[in-house]
C-alpha cells in the first residue's frame, strides 16, 4: 500500500514561493506582451485579434530608403550609439577601478572599505544621482562658472546639459558599478602565482595585462557588459531627464504609448526591443563560452 507519509517533501519545495513570483510577474507578463502585440485596439479598449498592424506601423516607411531614415531606425540608432559609448567608458573605468582594488590594495580591510566607497552612492535612487548633475552642468552651473572665470570660454556652454553628452555622463556615473563588480570578482579569482610566474619569466606589465589578466577577466567583462547594455537599451528616465526630453529612446516610445493606452502598439515595440537586446547578448556570449569559463 502506498504510504503517503513515506513521501518526503522535497527541499526543492522551499523555492516554490520564489518560483511563483517569477511565474506571475515574469513569465505570464512576457507571454502576454508577446500575445497582445498582435491584438487590435481603439481609444477605449484592447481587442483580441491576430494582426501584424502594430509591427507594420513601427516599420512604416523604414524600407523605402527614399528620404531620411524612419523614426524607428533613428531611435534605435541613437540608442545603439548611447549603448556603445556608455559601454566603452564604463568598461575602461570599471576595469581600472577593479584592477586597482584587486591588485594594488593588499589588505582585505582596505579592499572592503574602498569597495564599499564605490557602492554607497548606489544606495540612493538613480533619479537623485542624475538630478545632482543639473546644478553642475547648467548654464549657470559650476562647470560653466569655472569655464567663464578662467576665460576658457566667453559664453556659457549649452552642450553640457540636456544633450547627448549629459546623457552619457549620467549613464557612466550611474552604471560603472555594474562593470566593477563582475570584473573585480573575476580578478579576485586569478591565482596570484600565475602573475608572479609570468613576471619572473620576464613578462612586462603590459604583457601580463594583455596575456593573463584580460583573458582571465573575460567572463566578468561580458557579464558587466550585458548589464550595462540591457540597462541602456531599456532606459527612458535617464535619457528623458538628462536629454531634456528632447532625445528619443525606445523606452520613451513604449512609455508614451502606454500612457495613451495604445497597449498593443507598446507591446509590439517591447517585443522588438526585447528581441534586439537578447540578440546583442547572444552575440556577446558567443564571443566567450560562458559555461567553459565559469
Amino acid at each position, binding site marked *: 500500500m502506498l504510504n503517503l507519509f513515506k513521501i518526503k517533501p522535497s527541499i526543492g519545495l522551499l523555492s516554490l514561493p*520564489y518560483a511563483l513570483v517569477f511565474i506571475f510577474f515574469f513569465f505570464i507578463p512576457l507571454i*502576454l506582451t508577446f500575445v497582445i502585440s498582435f491584438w487590435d485596439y481603439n481609444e477605449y479598449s484592447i481587442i483580441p485579434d491576430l494582426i501584424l498592424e502594430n509591427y507594420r506601423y513601427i516599420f512604416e516607411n523604414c524600407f523605402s530608403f527614399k528620404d531620411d531614415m524612419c523614426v524607428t531606425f533613428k531611435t534605435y540608432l541613437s540608442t545603439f550609439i548611447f549603448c556603445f559609448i556608455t559601454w566603452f567608458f564604463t568598461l575602461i573605468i570599471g576595469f581600472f577601478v577593479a584592477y586597482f582594488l584587486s591588485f594594488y590594495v593588499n589588505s582585505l580591510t582596505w579592499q572592503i572599505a574602498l569597495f564599499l566607497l564605490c557602492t554607497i552612492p548606489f544606495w540612493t535612487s538613480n533619479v537623485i544621482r542624475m538630478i545632482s548633475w543639473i546644478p553642475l552642468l547648467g548654464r549657470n552651473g559650476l562647470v560653466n562658472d569655472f569655464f567663464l572665470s578662467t576665460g576658457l570660454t566667453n559664453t556659457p556652454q549649452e552642450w553640457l546639459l540636456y544633450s547627448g553628452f549629459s546623457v552619457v555622463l549620467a549613464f557612466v556615473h550611474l552604471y560603472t558599478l555594474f562593470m566593477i563588480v563582475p570584473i573585480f570578482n573575476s580578478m579576485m579569482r586569478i591565482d596570484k602565482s600565475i602573475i608572479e610566474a609570468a613576471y619572473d619569466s620576464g613578462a612586462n606589465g603590459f604583457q601580463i595585462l594583455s596575456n593573463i589578466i584580460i583573458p582571465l577577466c573575460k567572463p566578468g567583462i561580458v557579464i558587466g557588459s550585458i548589464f550595462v547594455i540591457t540597462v541602456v537599451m531599456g532606459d527612458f528616465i535617464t535619457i528623458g531627464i538628462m536629454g531634456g526630453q528632447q532625445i528619443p529612446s525606445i523606452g520613451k516610445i513604449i512609455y508614451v504609448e502606454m500612457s495613451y493606452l495604445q497597449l498593443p502598439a507598446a507591446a509590439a515595440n517591447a517585443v522588438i526591443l526585447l528581441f534586439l537586446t537578447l540578440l546583442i547578448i547572444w552575440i556577446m556570449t558567443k564571443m566567450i563560452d560562458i559555461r567553459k569559463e565559469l
Partner: protein
Amino acid sequence: MFNKKNKTYYICVFFFSLFVLFLYGPTLTIVLLSFQGPDGGLTFPLNGVSTFWFEELWRGGSVVDIGSAFKRSIILGIIVMILTVILSVAAGLAFRKKFWGSNVLFFTTVASLIVPSIVLSLGVALQFRLIDDLIKWIGITLDISWINDFFQTSLGMYSSGLGAQLTWTLPFGLLIMFAVFNRFDK
C-alpha cells in the same frame, strides 16, 4: 610586480581618487546647495547659509506631499525587504540540492536581470489590465454588486507595484544567498 613604489601604483591611486570624486562630487554639491539661503536657487555661490528650504519642506510648502510620499516609499520598501529576505533564503536553501526545475528557475533568475525594465513593466501592466477586465466581467455576469459599484482597478502599489519590485530584488537576493551558502559545509 604590484610594487607600491611603482609609478603605475600612483597612476592607479590618482585614477581611483578621480573616480570617487566623480561618484560623490555631484551629490555633495546637492547637499551643499540644500543649505542655500531663501533667495538662492540651484546655483553657486550660496546666497547665505540657512535651513530655510528644509523648514519649507517640513511645513509641506512644496507641490508634492512629501510626507505621504516618504511614508509610501518606506512601507513598500520594508515589505519588499521582508519578502525578498524570506523568499530568497528559502530558495537559496532549496538550491543547495538539485531539484525538479532548478535549472529553469536559475535561468529565469538571470533572465529577469537581463529583460529591460520597461518591457517587464509593460507586461505587468497588461496583465493587470486583463485581470481588471476579468473581474469586471465576473461582476457583471454574476451580478456581484460591490464589484459593479466599487471596483476600479487591481493595479496598485501593493499588487502590481510590489510584484514588479520583487522581480528586480529577488534575483539579487538569491545570488547573494548562493554566495553565502557556498561557504557552508555540504
